[in-house]
């Protein structure tokens, strides 16, 4: 279990705390609804849940500007929601409807949104890292002070792309934040079975990339660590932030979870990021039970609306199948 390395972050005010709670609860309830809809066969394909890891996307993305970019993995519902993509467009995507954020071509693993600079869920482990480096290179070459955040699991650290990308970003001093969501398992293989050095933040040193590890269940700790990391990256220097977290659910919808014990999962659930955050806010009189109830109500409506939007959506005509293999008038 991750050590509690909370950094005594300053207390948020009521509005910020409520907003953060809202984002985490939205991700949680949205995905719980997804599970229901998956069982009802409304959603198909591979679907990977973020439940348990909400504090990471919420805390990191809170520190970004609207025109900062995100490159994510197939486990990206949380990042997409936190970046401000509409729940309806995401749900419609999972339904495979043309109103979805990628016209139903991508599904759960491939959410895209040019407006919010959400540059995709990439389902090739490690595949997004070079892309993020390139986005950062373009920003640097055009003197833009934007940040690109690349989310990836600890499993991706074993891929060559991790090492190539860290090296290149450091060599060229590019504004990219490598955001490792260490949930201890790559599908069913534990980190200790795959890495000779399991302390991922340490790997930054090999490439001269400033790095830190943070308790990924502690929203305010993540947020504070991310603030520091993003400020560093904004000065055109890469950064590696390892968030130590845990997924409460199976890897995907097809996983008997033979590789970990129920007790381990139960232990981690005691550190549910939503509960941890809310209890701390309540104890500090920043949020009340009434706030939580109100948030739940708002979120329930958002999720219902998203489902209604997806249900009302339409199928892309088959005659459009070959559209966008090549561009239709996009200028280079």
């Amino acid at each position: 279990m991750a050590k509690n390395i909370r950094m005594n972050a300053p207390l948020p005010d009521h509005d910020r705390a409520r907003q953060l709670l809202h984002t985490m609860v939205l991700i949680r309830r949205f995905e719980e609804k997804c599970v229901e809809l998956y069982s009802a066969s409304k959603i198909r394909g591979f679907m990977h849940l973020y439940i348990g890891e909400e504090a990471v996307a919420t805390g990191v993305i809170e520190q970004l500007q609207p025109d900062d970019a995100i490159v994510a993995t197939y486990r990206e519902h949380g990042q997409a929601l936190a970046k401000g993509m509409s729940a309806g467009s995401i749900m419609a995507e999972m339904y495979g409807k043309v109103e979805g954020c990628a016209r139903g071509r991508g599904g759960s693993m491939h959410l895209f949104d040019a407006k919010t600079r959400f540059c995709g869920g990439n389902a090739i482990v490690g595949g997004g890292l070079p892309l993020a480096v390139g986005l950062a290179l373009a920003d640097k070459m055009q003197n833009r002070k934007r940040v690109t955040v690349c989310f990836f699991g600890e499993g991706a650290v074993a891929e060559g792309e991790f090492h190539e990308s860290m090296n290149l970003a450091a060599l060229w001093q590019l504004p990219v934040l490598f955001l490792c969501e260490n949930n201890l398992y790559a599908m069913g293989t534990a980190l200790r079975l795959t890495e000779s050095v399991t302390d991922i933040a340490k790997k930054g040193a090999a490439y001269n990339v400033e790095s830190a590890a943070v308790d990924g269940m502690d929203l305010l700790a993540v947020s504070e660590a991310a603030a520091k990391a993003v400020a560093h990256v904004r000065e055109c220097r890469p950064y590696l932030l390892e968030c130590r977290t845990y997924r409460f659910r199976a890897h995907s919808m097809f996983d008997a979870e033979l590789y970990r014990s129920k007790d381990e999962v139960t232990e981690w659930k005691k550190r549910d990021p939503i509960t941890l955050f809310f209890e701390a806010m309540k104890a500090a009189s920043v949020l009340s039970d009434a706030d939580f109830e109100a948030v739940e109500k708002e979120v329930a409506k958002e999720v219902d609306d998203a489902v209604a939007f997806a249900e009302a959506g339409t199928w892309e005509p088959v005659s459009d199948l070959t559209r966008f293999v090549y561009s239709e008038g996009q200028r280079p």
Partner: protein
Amino acid sequence: MTFRDAVREGIRDAMRKDARVFLMGEDVGHYGGCFAVSKGLLAEFGPGRIRDTPLMESAFVGAGIGAALGGMKPIVEIMTCNFSLLALDQIMNTAATLLHMSGGQFNVPLVIRMATGGGKQLAAQHSHSLEGWYAHIPGIKVLTPATLEDGYGMLTSALNDPDPVLIFENQTLYNMEGEALVNPGAVDIAKARVRREGKDVSIFTYGASLNKSLDAAATLEKEGISVEVVDLRVLRPLDDATIMASVAKTHRVLIVDEGWRSGGISAEISARIMEQAFYELDKPVTRVCSAEVPMPYAKHLETAALPQVESIIAAIKQLVPDHG
């Protein structure tokens, strides 16, 4: 002027005209390019735009994709197509898919250049022709320049294209001499071109096999066989119209491809002729391809493995036995 010079001029002019264009790859800067294509460009444009990369094909191709998404116009050079396999994931799973998978939101205006082909005794890890493989992939375009005009112009056109374009430069062409280009510019990257008119048989070919085919045609003319030579130029998308028009004219077909025969671009072209022009054929379609072996080092074996003027002539004589 050589083919190498033509490509270099294409890069130089593009970089002078558009600040978004930059070149990156292994040894493109201080070394001057593995095949000396980019020689002198570092001095003119500096290390910010002529970027030497570490040995990381996957990452610098992926970075090219990202830079293209971020508004730049990268030219990524991969030393040879053999090494491009280390970047195949980025090319196929990202560059080729992004636009479609994002529902039309993220196009990738990326140009990737790489050397291809054999003939220089570089053996089995530096001599293969993989352009036909890449032509299998929807979402990218595959160009195979064989003339100075195309060496310059295809690069220019590729940079004007909103989607990923792969340019395969046959390594034996770099020293090819030609007339200096006058007012070179963009060329079409959609059409095949008839390089030599003929009436008895059509050769469909591209890259280094174009000159071999033209040499064979010149020899055969003296023997009374009139050979039409079509330079495919673009392997994806294939220009069916020009191919079928030539079939309808000569009724006999030889495909010359430096790639392997099985499952290659020659098989694809042959299948399309069956589908679209079967009743135009007087004889079955014939192919001269590379032998189905890893390319050997020894000169005589390598020569035997590659399409040659002699093997092209022999194949044509089989197709047109009743000449004279």
